[in-house]
């Protein structure tokens, strides 16, 4: 019987290569797959391009990956946080490259990759610094900017429940980038708090169908600093 359940975080990330592009879900702490990021730090891959909404808080999760010197480039919409001092320091020292992307362009570029779309025109960013050098086109009297898809080698996604076919549901606003990132990567690793039997997830409410997920790994429902959810 097919099973996408990984025995451990270590096993689920064993083949991440140096130079990989890794899509990392989460908005602030909600949906941030800290356990998988810790696994990636232990795994040791370096020279990574990380695609995420933010660029880490304090010294855990993404910030810890940055601090370990594993990240060459960050593609994100909002790196600046009250406690993003690890990223801030690396950026000011020229040790990490930043591609700043409006959040909707980020989501749509990832979605485009997952949907086989080679690029799209959007009004967002037109006339601003963030569209500099990009192709523009007038469509029905309005100006649009051409944006390209963002593909991942890996996506690290925090979901709530999953089954051995890789079907996923999420919890509240922890969903955010998870579903589109799962679509856009060659290998999607999803952490879940509960692994359930096939058929237990109501087909009407499955958010990410299993075709987009290669590995599911169970994690404890810890109450971390980043995601202090109730038990």
């Amino acid at each position: 019987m097919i099973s996408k359940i990984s025995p451990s975080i270590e096993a689920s990330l064993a083949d991440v290569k140096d130079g990989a592009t890794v899509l990392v879900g989460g908005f602030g702490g909600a949906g941030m797959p800290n356990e998988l990021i810790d696994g990636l730090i232990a795994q040791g891959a370096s020279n990574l391009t990380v695609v995420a909404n933010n660029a880490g808080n304090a010294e855990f999760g993404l910030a810890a990956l940055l601090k370990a010197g594993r990240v060459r480039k960050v593609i994100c919409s909002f790196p600046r946080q009250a406690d993003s001092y690890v990223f801030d320091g690396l950026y000011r020292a020229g040790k990490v490259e930043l591609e700043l992307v409006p959040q909707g362009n980020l989501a749509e570029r990832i979605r485009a990759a997952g949907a086989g779309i080679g690029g799209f025109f959007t009004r967002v960013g037109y006339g601003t610094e963030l569209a500099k050098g990009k192709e523009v086109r007038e469509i029905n009297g309005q100006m649009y900017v051409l944006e390209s898809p963002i593909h991942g080698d890996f996506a690290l996604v925090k979901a709530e429940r999953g089954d051995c076919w890789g079907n996923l549901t999420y919890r509240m606003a922890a969903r955010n980038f998870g579903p589109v990132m799962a679509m856009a990567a060659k290998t999607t690793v999803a952490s879940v708090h509960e692994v359930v039997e096939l058929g237990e997830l109501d087909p009407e409410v499955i958010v990410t169908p299993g075709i987009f997920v290669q590995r599911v790994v169970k994690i404890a429902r810890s109450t971390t600093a980043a995601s202090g959810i109730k038990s």
Partner: protein
Amino acid sequence: MSYAKLSREQLAARVAQDIPEGAYVNLGIGLPTLVANHLSPTKEVFLQSENGLLGMGPAPAKGSEDFDLINAGKQPVTLLPGGSYFHSADSFAMMRAGHLDIAVLGAFQVAANGDLANWHTGNPDDIPAVGGAMDLAVGAKQTWVMMELFTKEGACKLVEQCSYPITGVGCVSRVYTDHGVFDVTRDGFQLIEAVDGLSRETLTSMIGVLIR
């Protein structure tokens, strides 16, 4: 004649007064977030949050926060009965394709042609961060700005042309300030109302750009 500027809460109440029942609204982080506290409980307004919430409710009681349920500013919130969750691409589809009636945003500057600057000071030492500002600025049916009219140094934030990097071209339709309310028209800023005790002439003379 003397006048008092609106406080931040009074300004939030002034904006809230103009949001019609049934409107789908995104309140930007910072000052605009305060508007939520002043929406009349008898007026149903749908608040959207970029991280995937529609029907966002007020902050939870202390002790019942859930950090899987936060707003764009990463503060714990609640979801009203009838509210929904969705992923980021759907959320930004709402924000980018005119599904939202009103976006209320803060600003560094607004230009007479409606250009908005609110994402970056342009100072190379500052970490740039844009979030959903550019999406909201051009994607809502109406973009309202809510800000203090003057900087701490006394510079007027209504300008002929933005000196800060812009967020969107010609996207602002209305500006609520602590001194008065302005529309952005084809012919530049138009004064809609000045705060009590401040004459039209005095207010116009305080601003370095032509006001109709």
